């Protein structure tokens, strides 16, 4: 350890209380940042998982015409020879599941109220290889029964006042745009982490929909699930690569990755990260004032000492270094404490999470979410916070260090 750093370290140790308070402000700033980053990453991860497992899948394939009119979920633009497309995609690397789906708009009636719904026609066998709805179902999944079976979003069922085993009427336009209505037995309710699904979606099987909607094997979309990687970036690269390959193979089809489908949400995610960083900057600016004050106090306490060192031939930049070392040590202690604090809270968040239900159902910015929100480990953010805390401490101690170096030797020696 050099003499300058040794003197600085011993001074930092000598003023324990002041050092602790200055370091504490940094620690709190970094701790909040690490915690916020964890919660936000956890929220983003959960939202992305929700999107992929409940709505978009990894890659969604439709016809271009369907895509142009997708808001109305038309039943006239089916994919030609979907079996061939599905069979080809299944053979691709890292593909874990492929399933057809057909979406439609309908109305649900309990003879008193009528509610608009978004219908999902699913393949009972393959849907579970792509979407993860089954684990959210209260009641039963589709059976071989000849009855018309329907699964409703839980909130929708509550709104309509129906329970499992009750009958309900579904209205919809068939593929030939004729109005049809039929009675369905409610076999289950969907209680997912996405309130939109819970309050708007109904599921019926292709076996039922074939007759009800005159589908005649019409498939409007194919959903692809890909192996989830630990690293999100690697996963998106896999998805991009396969999507590009399929675009070349099937130029007549519209092939969209979940990143494209959820671009609005992903932009919001970036914005949230940006605002998180702004918040950390504000907290660390407060910490910087604390360190500035601490180093300035140290300079005033040691003016005579500075005079002696200068009289002995110590250069001005060495005096600056001496006080910068103090800032570095305060920053190191603060950053270390901050990382310990942040990681400590994070362990709890990762293991136990935050039960959002306790705060009532709500929507976060842009995408609905509820359930238990778990934290995420983000080593990059922790390293960034540590280095940033150090840089802030260094920057905050620079001005008082320069003041110390500029002192006139005789005045410093006379200072009482």
């Amino acid at each position, binding site marked *: 350890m050099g003499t300058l750093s040794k003197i600085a370290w*011993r*001074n930092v140790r000598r003023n324990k209380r002041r050092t602790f308070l200055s370091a504490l402000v940094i620690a709190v700033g970094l701790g909040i940042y690490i915690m916020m980053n964890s919660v936000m990453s956890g929220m983003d991860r959960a939202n992305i998982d929700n999107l992929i497992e409940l709505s978009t899948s990894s890659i969604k394939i439709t016809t271009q015409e369907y895509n142009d009119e997708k808001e109305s979920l038309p039943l006239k633009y089916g994919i030609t020879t979907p079996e061939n497309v599905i069979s080809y995609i299944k053979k691709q690397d890292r593909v874990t599941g492929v399933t057809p789906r057909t979406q439609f708009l309908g109305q649900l009636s309990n003879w008193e109220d009528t509610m608009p719904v978004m219908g999902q026609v699913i393949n009972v066998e393959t849907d579970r290889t792509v979407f993860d709805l089954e684990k959210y179902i209260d009641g039963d999944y589709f059976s071989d029964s000849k009855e018309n079976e329907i699964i409703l979003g839980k909130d929708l069922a509550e709104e309509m006042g129906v329970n499992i085993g009750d009958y309900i009427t579904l209205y919809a336009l068939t593929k030939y745009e004729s109005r049809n209505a039929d009675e369905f037995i409610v076999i289950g309710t969907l209680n997912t982490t996405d309130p939109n699904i819970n309050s708007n979606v109904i599921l019926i099987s292709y076996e039922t929909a074939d007759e009800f909607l005159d589908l005649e094997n019409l498939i409007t979309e194919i959903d692809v699930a890909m192996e989830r990687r630990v690293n999100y970036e690697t996963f998106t690269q896999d998805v991009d690569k396969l999507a590009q390959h399929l675009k070349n193979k099937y130029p007549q089809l519209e092939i969209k990755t979940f990143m494209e489908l959820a671009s609005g949400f992903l932009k919001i995610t970036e914005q949230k990260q940006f605002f998180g960083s702004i918040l950390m900057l504000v907290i660390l600016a407060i910490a910087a004032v604390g360190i500035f004050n601490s180093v300035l106090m140290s300079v005033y306490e040691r003016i005579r*000492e500075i005079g002696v060192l200068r009289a*002995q*031939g*110590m*250069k001005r930049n*060495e005096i600056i270094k001496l006080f910068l070392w103090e800032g570095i040590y305060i920053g190191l202690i603060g950053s270390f404490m901050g990382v310990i604090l942040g990681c400590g809270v994070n362990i709890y968040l990762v293991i136990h999470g935050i039960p959002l239900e306790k705060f009532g159902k709500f929507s976060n910015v842009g995408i609905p979410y509820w359930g238990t929100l778990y934290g995420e480990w983000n080593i990059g953010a922790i390293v960034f916070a540590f280095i940033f805390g150090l840089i802030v401490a260094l920057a905050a101690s620079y001005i008082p260090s320069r003041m110390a170096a500029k002192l006139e*030797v005789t005045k410093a020696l006379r200072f009482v």
Partner: protein
Amino acid sequence: MPLLELQGVIKNYTKGDQIIPALRGIDLIIEKGDFLSIVGPSGSGKSTLLNIIGCIDTPTKGKVLYNGNDLTALSDKEKTYYRKENISFIFQSYNLIPVLTTRENVELPLIIEKKFTKKEIHEKAMKIIQIVGLADMADRFPRELSGGQEQRVAIARALVKNPLVVLADEPTANLDSEMSEDIISVMQKMNEERHTTFIFSTHDRLVEKHAKRVIILRDGKIAKDERKNNGNTE
């Protein structure tokens, strides 16, 4: 060529609109190996004179030549270098670094010089600490020392780098007469063996007694400059 030469040095301080003269035209030649004591009442300009010679203060007017080079024309960097290479200070109030031990305080000027290895620095420091009689207190911090012991550390710190000029402001003020004698004899030995120039500002009769030359300052002017030879004044 003299080691140091002051030519018409005037130093004024300003306090508001008031100009306070500290030195009113000092002409002085100091030879290498001088053992010089500056005496005079408080406010006579003793400390100012030492500060100007030590290049930590600049004269309002006049020149200070060191080996023929004008110190007043030096930049701040050059003055720092001049102090590092040639000058050591002993302050009346010790001014030790409180967070460094006796040994570390004494090592500091050598570390600033950057000329020696760690081992050499350690050896040189321990040798001078032994000379000032603090070998068993080498690892103590200043707060653990008495006033006299602190001053001995300050003296050891000044002598360790074997400077050409030692500027000492009341160096024996806090020492008893026995320790003062010891310290003065160390300085005399350095003066005789290495021709180190000592310039004291002092009220101590003992220092005055051992000085080869005594300058009396009064109201910022040299009132008397007497050179002693074998105890007799010239």
